[in-house]
């Protein structure tokens, strides 16, 4: 295979994943949190594709496509929540959604 080996791809994947995780953990805007989640998912997808290539086996790609579909579903629900929040005239802040406090 031309270019860098699989470990390099995996490194990029984990870097993306951790970047997204920081966004999820540190940002309070639900929009940014959702975008960061997408980055995490894509990091995972990259790892899946890299392993798929490594083993020469298409199953990893199937998995990645499924993840994409799930991400699309998640985006629908997440954006629906954000729109609902906005209509409720709440601040767009994930910490506002704390009515499950025990």
């Amino acid at each position, binding site marked *: 295979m031309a270019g860098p080996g699989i470990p390099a791809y995996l490194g990029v994947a984990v870097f993306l994943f951790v970047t997204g995780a920081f966004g*999820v*953990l540190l940002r*309070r805007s639900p929009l940014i949190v959702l975008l960061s989640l997408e980055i995490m998912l894509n990091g995972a997808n990259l790892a899946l594709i890299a392993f798929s290539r490594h083993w020469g086996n298409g199953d990893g790609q199937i998995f990645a496509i499924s993840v994409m579909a799930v991400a699309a579903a998640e985006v629908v629900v997440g954006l629906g929540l954000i729109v609902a929040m906005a209509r409720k005239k709440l601040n767009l802040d*994930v*910490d506002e959604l*704390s*009515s*499950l*406090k025990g």
Partner: protein
Amino acid sequence: MVAAAWICLLLPLAGALLITLLGNVLSRKAAGVLATSSVAGAFVAAAVAFVTMLGDGEQHRSHLSTGFTWLSAGSFQADFSILLDPLSLVMMLVITGVGSLIVLYSIGYMHGDNEERRFFGYMALFVFSMLLLVQGGNLLLLLVGWGLVGLSSYLLIGFWHEKPSAVAAAKKAFIINAIGDATFAIAIIVIIQQTHIVGFDALSALNPDNHGVLNLVALGLLGGAVAKSAQLPLHTWLPDAMEGPTPVSALIHAATMVTAGVYLIARCHTVFESAHQVQNIAAGIGALTIVVAGAIALVQTDIKRVIAYSTMSQIGYMFVGVGLGAYASSMFHLMTHAFFKALLFMGAGIVIHALSGEQDIRQMGGLRKLMPRTYVMMLIASLALIGFPLTSGFFSKDAILAGALASGPYGAALWVIGMIGALLTGVYTSRMFLTVFHGAPGDLVLRQLGPDAHGQGATTDGHGHGEGPRTMLIPVAILTVLALGGGFIQVFDWWTGMQTWLESVVPSLHEPTGWQEAISSIGAPLLGLVGVTFGWAVYGSRKDTAPKPSRSLEHKLYFDELYDRIAYAPAAFIARFVTRLIEGPLVIGSGDLVGHVTRGAGEKARLLQNGLVRSYALLIALSFAVMGIVFLAVR
């Protein structure tokens, strides 16, 4: 014939189920009619089976009919089957015949009670259970019926469940019967372990040389019989069982269930004959009960309890009979006793009914003029109980006594005790009878039945109808005829109907000679009459009939107190001990501890649920990191 037996068994069950399931759909009257007709239908079926069996040859009268395989485990198999033979047929006829009369009687007696339907449902259930007991084709079914009659007896004794004494009596009956059930079950388990079958043929399959096993089995069976038939020392439940409605006392605690022990010994006679000592013990217990129960009956003041002790005493005769091998005579006495004792109870029921529930004979008196029909039939029943010549009790009791005399010196000793019992019977019967029906009427009697009492007692609670409605009097009349003439089934050894009938199933061991018959037949009624004379002298004229009993008799020979000491008190002591040392700190304490710990943990864990999504995400990330480190470390 077998089909008739199945119908006989299942009709009362159908009646009980219908009454239970239909509930309020059924009127109270209809429930009574349904119960009566189901039991009467069973009687008709039993009669059909009887007539058909008469046509069979002597040796072909035993039919085992299997409905379906009930249990099957490996080579062991128990069927749901019924055994129809002369012995079970006699019991079936008595149970359904007397039973249908008593259920009919209770339509009148229970009229106006709040829960009549429940009563009739229980009654039908009882008849089914009793039929299952006598018809069961193997030991296991016999045990099932045995337990079911205990259950329905419990339900019926405690029928008036708002009365604490009735509930206590029901519990007592159930617990004491459970002792018998346990020994019976042990006996059956031993039989199964020894022979690997549960049919009645297992009884003769036991190794006759293995005396330990035989004695164990016989003792277990005897324990069951003693408890169910209220023989010493497990008799204390029967007098208390009189808390139940009077028809229950008549049906269960006089005519049928309490005689199940006699049936059991007769049915398992092969075991008892092999375990001879145990059979002698059975006879001894019977003899002891005759005297003890007769003596206690002398001083009881509750009319039903007097009859209850008399029942114990009469069953004692039957135990003497089966204990000495006079099976046919015992079954004969079982039958005639069912007639006259049911009659006595029903008569007592009419009296109690007329007096609005009063059972104390000291409050009664002078009822002869006020209740002439009841007087006549109670007179006949009492004469039969005493064994007055030519009444039914005369033939049967004397047959047992003659059989006892015919079976050696031990039998002769028991014969003497039986004679004493006959004397006691005369005394207590005449005491009860004279106190209730002769003398001057008491205040209560005048209030309830006197000339100016009309419209007062009659309206209050449905009781106090004079001598009762026709549904009560018809069965009483039929039973009066039977109590009077039922003994002619077997007259000495001139006409041995019962003996011949049962010969193929339970052949009697001894044949009394002419003089033995004669001395018993003359001696027993004579002693009975002596007792009556004595009773007449003491109780006949006096109004104040409060007897001057010995204190120990009044306390029923301290049996209840004894059981209280040896069984209840230690149990209560242990229970208190366990409560204080184990229940309190460990069981209850651990419950509190678990509660507190969980609650505290919840209080702390609640703080984690701060509702902030990001902190949940942080927890996930942290645990992910920790897990990663762990996976790396263990790699």
